[in-house]
């Protein structure tokens, strides 16, 4: 087996609590499909047959009991549950399933929506025998107004600095503004080996990583590393240039590790050491070098290599903020071929449904309604003379007559009273908006 897929679906969605206090993030509807469907669909399309899904008991229960959550994937899903309050980071979760990991892993986050060609990332991993290979994308500005926020909110996020070499594929440097005191500090050893480095900001990290099995084993021995993105990746990127990785001592260490894990000790070590020799002979005889201008061998003799594939075009979103959630809903229909209006929806003839709207299953849309650039969830009832523009209506919502909803997010099972006028609002789960209410730019959600 070449790669095992691991889907991280235990994250809380801490940056969009208004949406996630009632619905766990992996099950938030995007284009009327649960968020977790998108990475699962991506994995299925490229050819994976089974996925290890790390999630919470709550999500597992909802997947198995709630009829509205239909995952629609043919792959075998191996659900591993962790406690909600265990406060496990992604690296902790990976350590938790170390016994299940038999080969190199592809770690995906449940909030990734992308149409990236995964083979670009995996080819880098294969061709250069890399330890880490990841996916990033040029960030796009979010153009939609976010409900519940007055004015353009400053992102307030710290910038990520990503340093790549001349080819744009080898990852040389990665740091977050929060970790840097005064300026970007780059070690001389890196500069000596790679005198030309392109430093990029404004990239979106897709949280998609190909990791060697030895990294998972390394995590088992180093329990202090808790997050893949926050700690493991910068550690691996730094380790590429550390003196200890490039010394011959490392070969002995890996043989020691082999001794610990395998019962068929002698055979494995003999085979692996001879294979190492053959790989070394190949590299010696091959007249290829990854860089020019100094006297070093290919890869500067380094054993640990990190690569990144940066997408120029295409869709790549991480749905971890409200703004991203709304943008994703706009674009999600482009990712699948299903008809915009679900066949089981009851739609009256005298209503106006725009081409870029999606109507979910079992909906009831009454006369003289107008739905433009919006998503209507499963089992939602929309009465007469309602105008819905640029909004996201989740499942089981009831919208009474004459309402006008613009640029808003209405969460599941909410009820919008007759004649309400709602602009740029976020209405939480099971909330009620009183009839004839007028609300602009506010967030009405249940306080936890």
């Amino acid at each position, binding site marked *: *087996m070449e790669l095992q897929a691991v889907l991280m679906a235990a994250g809380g969605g801490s940056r969009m609590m208004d949406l996630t206090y009632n619905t766990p993030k992996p099950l938030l509807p995007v284009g009327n499909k649960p968020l977790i469907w998108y990475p699962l669909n991506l994995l299925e399309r*490229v050819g994976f047959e089974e996925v290890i899904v790390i999630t919470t008991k709550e999500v597992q229960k909802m997947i198995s009991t709630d009829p509205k959550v239909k995952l629609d994937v043919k792959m075998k899903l191996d659900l591993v549950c962790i406690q909600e309050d265990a406060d496990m980071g992604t690296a902790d979760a990976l350590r938790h399933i170390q016994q299940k990991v038999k080969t190199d892993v592809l770690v995906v986050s449940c909030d990734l929506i992308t149409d990236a060609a995964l083979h670009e990332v995996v080819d880098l991993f294969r061709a250069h025998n890399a330890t880490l290979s990841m996916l990033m994308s040029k960030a796009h500005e979010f153009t939609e107004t976010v409900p519940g926020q007055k004015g353009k909110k400053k992102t307030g996020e710290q910038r990520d600095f990503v340093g790549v070499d001349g080819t744009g594929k080898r990852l040389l440097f990665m740091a977050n503004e929060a970790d840097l005191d005064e300026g970007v500090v780059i070690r001389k050893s890196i500069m000596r080996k790679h005198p030309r480095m392109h430093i990029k900001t404004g990239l979106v990290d897709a949280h998609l990583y190909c990791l060697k099995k030895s990294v998972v084993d390394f995590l088992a021995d180093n329990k202090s590393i808790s997050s893949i993105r926050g700690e493991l990746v910068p550690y691996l990127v730094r380790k590429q240039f550390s003196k200890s990785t490039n010394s011959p001592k490392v070969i002995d260490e890996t043989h020691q590790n082999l001794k610990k894990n395998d019962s068929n000790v002698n055979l494995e070590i003999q085979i692996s050491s001879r294979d190492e020799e*053959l790989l070394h002979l190949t590299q010696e*005889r*091959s*007249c290829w070098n990854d860089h020019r201008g100094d006297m070093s061998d290919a890869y500067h003799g380094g054993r640990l290599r990190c690569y990144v594939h940066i997408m120029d075009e295409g869709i790549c979103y991480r749905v971890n903020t409200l703004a991203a959630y709304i943008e994703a809903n706009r674009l999600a229909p482009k990712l699948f071929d299903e008809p915009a209006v679900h066949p089981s929806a009851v739609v009256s003839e005298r209503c106006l449904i725009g081409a870029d709207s999606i109507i979910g299953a079992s909906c009831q849309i009454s006369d003289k309604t107008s739905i433009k650039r919006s998503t209507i969830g499963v089992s939602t009832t929309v009465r007469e003379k309602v105008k819905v523009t640029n909004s996201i209506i989740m499942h089981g919502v009831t919208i009474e007559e004459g309402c006008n909803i613009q640029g808003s997010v209405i969460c599941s099972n909410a009820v919008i009273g007759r004649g309400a006028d709602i602009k740029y609002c976020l209405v939480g789960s099971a909330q009620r908006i009183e009839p004839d209410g007028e609300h602009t730019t506010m967030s009405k959600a249940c306080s936890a």
Partner: protein
Amino acid sequence: ETQTKCGTISLFSHLHQYSRKAPLTQQLSIPSTVIHPSIVRLGLQYSQGIVVGSNARSVALLHAFKQVIRDYTTPPNEELARDLVNKLKPYISFLNQCRPLSASMGNAIKYIKKEISNIPSQFKEEEAKTKLQKCIDCYINENVVLAAKAISKYAIKKISDGDVILVYGCSSLVNHILCEAYDKSRKFRVIVVDSRPRLEGREALRRLVQRGISCTYVLISALSYILPEVSKVFLGAHALLANGYVMSRVGTSQIALVARTFNVPVLVCCETYKFCERVQTDSFVSNELDDPDDLMVTRKGKTQLENWHDVSSLGLLNLVYDVTPPDFVDLVITDLGMIPCTSVPVVLRVKNLEQ
């Protein structure tokens, strides 16, 4: 009339045109199940040019085959001897699509297929697998490592103090010989001749200078300028054909021709496992076409040939190999000794008898 459709040269239209823009891995599933992962990795390394050079490609191929054999299990009601050979067929055709097989790879595949077919049926699976792994190690050791040692010993006899040796491109064997000669305290200097688009000479230059050998670097256009200084020419080979022709990197025949004109001896170094039964007298009938876009040069942000596809009367040709007739080659140094070019069919006959 030399163009059939835009961009293809009619004289070479019988050869497959490779393009790096359409990788084969797009159609393969991730994780790869139909093709063994180490074969997919190898194919990628071939097509991206990470593993390049006749020896390196053969060693990498045999290394991948070792992984395949290690992960192989005989299906029920099948014999390992027959089934494993059938398993290898799609892998070989996949690798051929990534990059055409070299003569050395072809010979290595013949050898391993023969070894697999000769596994006696009473061998248990583990025994058979271990035997095959040992055979592969043995083959590489004899034909690549020990052959290089033997060839160095013969070649060093031909290098005297004060020599000026000309080499072309980056031949792993020639580099090995020169490094060994330098270690044995021969005093000589090297002239590295290089050519576009591959510019492999830069890597040869790096390896020789790293050892401490004093080198000069020229492009092939300066060949007749530099040849009066040269005392010997050492060339590597991709394959030696049965009629004595040497198949090597494009440009080699030019070097041999000009060297003959200047009466400089040309010595070709080649291991016997690269000897091939094929007969070829020109570089057209069988060759490899590389990506024509490699011929484009970008200087100061400008690429002159950027839109060459749009020019209907322009075609770009990037040949990889050419054949040198035996008249231009003075000596072939092999692990069996120093032989003239015309003795190649004799060596092939002797090898066939041995098998």
